[in-house]
């Protein structure tokens, strides 16, 4: 094998290695700045969304049955947090020892608690300033929480999931 071929192989390999690095940096770039959709892709996405919208059935309020297994935060600064439910009660508030510590100006230090009783979860307001809402109803006494019904505490919304 002559020297020219060997040089070409050597340079080609370095080029491939650098191409990989550049491709990786490209992936980082799209991660930082988002993915730019071309006009055709945008139209396609719109069409898909339009098609999808009427098909999506309005979810019934108590669609999920059975005992809930986790509590998810769906809105507020902690959105995305999930807690696995055990047989322990969950305290919610701004206090440091709460199970779910909120950093929310509209929440009280000890705002509310959730506890299991006879196989269902009960929400109880602990005398908070702004109140606890279970699906638009203000919680005035310990109330059972069905799965998938939002509990609003200040700006935070949580719900139980199976």
């Amino acid at each position, binding site marked *: *094998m002559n020297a020219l071929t*060997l*040089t070409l*192989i*050597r*340079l*080609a*390999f*370095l080029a*491939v*290695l*650098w191409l*990989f*690095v550049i*491709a*990786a*940096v490209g*992936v*980082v770039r799209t*991660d930082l*700045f*988002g*993915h*730019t*959709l071309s*006009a055709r892709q*945008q139209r396609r*996405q*719109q069409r898909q*969304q339009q098609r999808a919208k009427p098909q999506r059935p309005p*979810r019934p*309020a108590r*669609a*999920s049955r059975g005992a809930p297994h986790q509590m*998810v*935060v*769906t*809105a*507020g600064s*902690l*959105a*995305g*947090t*999930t807690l696995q439910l055990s047989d322990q009660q969950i305290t919610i508030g701004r206090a440091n020892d709460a199970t779910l510590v909120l950093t929310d100006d*509209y929440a009280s230090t000890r705002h509310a608690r959730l506890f299991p009783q006879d196989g269902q979860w009960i929400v109880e307001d602990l005398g908070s300033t*702004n109140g606890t*809402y279970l*699906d*638009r109803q203000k919680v005035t006494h310990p109330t059972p929480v069905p*799965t*998938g*019904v*939002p509990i*609003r505490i*200040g*700006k935070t*919304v949580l*719900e139980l*999931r199976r």
Partner: protein
Amino acid sequence: MSAVAQPGQPGATVGARSGPPDAQPGQSAPVAVPRGRRRTELIMLAFAVGVVLAAYAAAGLGLNGKVPSGLAGYGLAFAALVLAAHLMVRRLAPWADPLMLPLAALLNGLGIVMIWRLQQSGHGGNPGVPISTMTSSTTTFQIAWSAAGIAAFVAVLVVIRQPRTLQRYTYTFGAIGLVLLVLPALPGIGSEVNGARVWISIGGFSIQPGEFAKLALAVFFAGYLVSKREVLALAGRRVLGIDLPRARDLGPVLMAWAASLLVLFFETDIGTSALFFGLFLVMLYVATQRTSWLLIGGGLFLAGAVVAGKWIPHVHERFQIWLNPFLGNRPYGSAYQLVQGLYGMGFGGVLGTGLGHGQPYVTPLVQSDFIITAFGEELGLTGLMALLLIYGLIVQRGLRAAVAVRDPFSKLMACGLAFVLALQVFVIVGGVTRLIPLTGITTPFLSQGGSSLVASWMMMALLMRVSDTARRPAPQPIQDEGMTQVVRTG
């Protein structure tokens, strides 16, 4: 004052709700859609496998002008291995960063190719002399360890579904880390290789427990600092514009310093001790945001290093080799390895000699500590820069996950893990290029050695788990709340 408005009631909404992004007609700005990006990962993985196979073919052509006969077999095995990892990531961490796996796979693959190339030198009519510290099964072992590493990667992803769960075992991991650190110093099972006691041998297997101690201690420091950081961030006296911590809070940093010095004295291993102390310092700094900790820790480390350089013969010799490797008879004696590594990289120049054309086999232990010089010789500065950039990208993705994740424990842990990877690469690459005194630690993913490979893959799994948690989109409410929102009325 605030009240709750009923549906349809006008009012300025305060509580911002994150709904699905509505595509508005004619919108042309970049749309950041949360995506798992597993397809990108697959494409990059295929690219990585392609680069590794190209390296393998090029090394064979360089050695004896023939494409190696095992190309298809080894290529398929490697591709199957990384594909398995990818499929498990699809199942177990669908939102994880798309780059970590391909980058790690590329480094691992290039390491295997280089070890194969070194093992081939002097055998079967190939140029060079056989390397006495390698056997004919070294490459096979490295491939087997890669498989074990990927298995460990999957196992970590299976066991740890939420990085937060590790926080419960903070002190358990602390104890495990300490035991792993101390094990090589014990007389029964510890063994000394090349002047450093970092090995233990159990039933014919040699393990470097320090590699795993790194991971355990990163978890321990994260858990410990999350609970103690408020105290450690308290300011004491102010000297020269820097808030010094209170004297009574110096305990933990002195403990970590003492522990790393003990490792230095009893295992005569500068690399490991620098790695642990550096890890603790940086995590302390990240947790408390106080520059004074870095200054205090850096001062302590320098003091320890100077004392060790004077009093521990092994460390003293390393310092002398670092400062004057070409003095007197050293290039043929104590500094032989370092000098040969430097000559090798010089021989490679900017573009390298090409895979299979250099003489990396001259450097002793080139397959483990000095593998970077082999790459420097055969791929040149250009190739070495690419490798360092790949390490840099892994570290960047790790730090990115740390920035994005919400939970402070996962944040600190990911930050510590990403940093310790960067520090390890710095210590070994800085050592072989004579920027800092040479210490024998492995180059993550590249070097020959099972412990290092498995530990590095486990670290990747932890980082990907954190990144998966960080990038997972917030759950959508099952029941739409309608227009119930907090409004300001007064």
